[in-house]
């Protein structure tokens, strides 16, 4: 219970610092900056605020790491050599496509 109260006070102070101190952003504002940060599209001022928040806030730092790892993993599971690739393309599909091609040419 004491721990919970301490953590609550800590969060309140942290929230106050982010909202009141000039040049700081809240965790919610940090969230809105993430994609532009990853795309290199933050302005100089935004980048400096983003970096300052990142240095101070452990939760956002860890969140960003997990978020970036998610992107890497999502990409990797579809680009790895083990991704299921159809090796059983039906000849009937190829025949249909070629027949449609021939019909279209005749109709030209």
């Amino acid at each position, binding site marked *: 219970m004491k721990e919970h109260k301490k953590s609550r006070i800590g*969060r*309140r102070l*942290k*929230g*106050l610092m*982010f*909202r009141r101190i000039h040049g700081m952003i*809240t*965790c*919610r*504002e*940090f*969230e809105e900056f*993430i*994609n*532009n940060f990853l*795309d290199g599209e933050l302005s100089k001022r935004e980048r400096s605020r983003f970096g300052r928040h990142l240095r101070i*806030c*452990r*939760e*956002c730092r*860890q*969140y960003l*790491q*997990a*978020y970036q*790892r*998610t*992107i*890497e*993993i*999502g*990409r*990797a*599971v*579809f*680009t*790895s*050599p*083990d*991704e*299921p*690739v*159809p*090796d*059983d*393309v*039906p000849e009937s*599909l*190829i025949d*249909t*496509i*070629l027949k*449609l*091609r021939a019909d*279209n040419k005749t109709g030209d």
Partner: protein
Amino acid sequence: MMERQQPTNVPPGNPGANPAETLVRNNIGWMISVAQRLLGDRALAEDAVQDAFISAFRGLDDFENRASLKTWLHRITVNAALMKLRKIKRRSEQSIDVYQPEFDEYECRIEAPWKHIESVEDILENEQRRTQVRAAIDQLPDNYRIVLLLRDIEGYSTNEVAQMLELSGSNVKIRLHRARAALKKLIEPILRGKLPS
């Protein structure tokens, strides 16, 4: 757009073969893969690829090597799959709010401490994990899943995705961020290494 080589067991067209047949045989395997990722269904993917080839044959005369053939076919395949998707409307109405990050009343992030984040290699080497990640992506509502696939997997730019989906660039960015955040939440037990092998 990212270029990717994918193996296929479809017999390649030989140099003496009809050029149309060569084009089909050399590309149909990866085109079905792309369409299947977007549509989540093999039969629909084959339909989309059939439509894509018809469009490709119509536009072949105007192609004139403006882009690489594969890049051009990739775009045509994506467009054909998106057309199919608009007709079937899978799960676009579902909300992903429940998978979004949480903040307390002080606007501080609520995030359990991360003692460890699994590496990409750890996850890739485990077939079950790879399947779970693909299933998590498939669980996203279509209007988010498609943006994530086109941007992060197929490698299109925000502007290209906006054009394909007839959305504004800022809308694409918002959807992409929400999709990535939701995916992070969905695969969190895998990322934390908490799932039994």
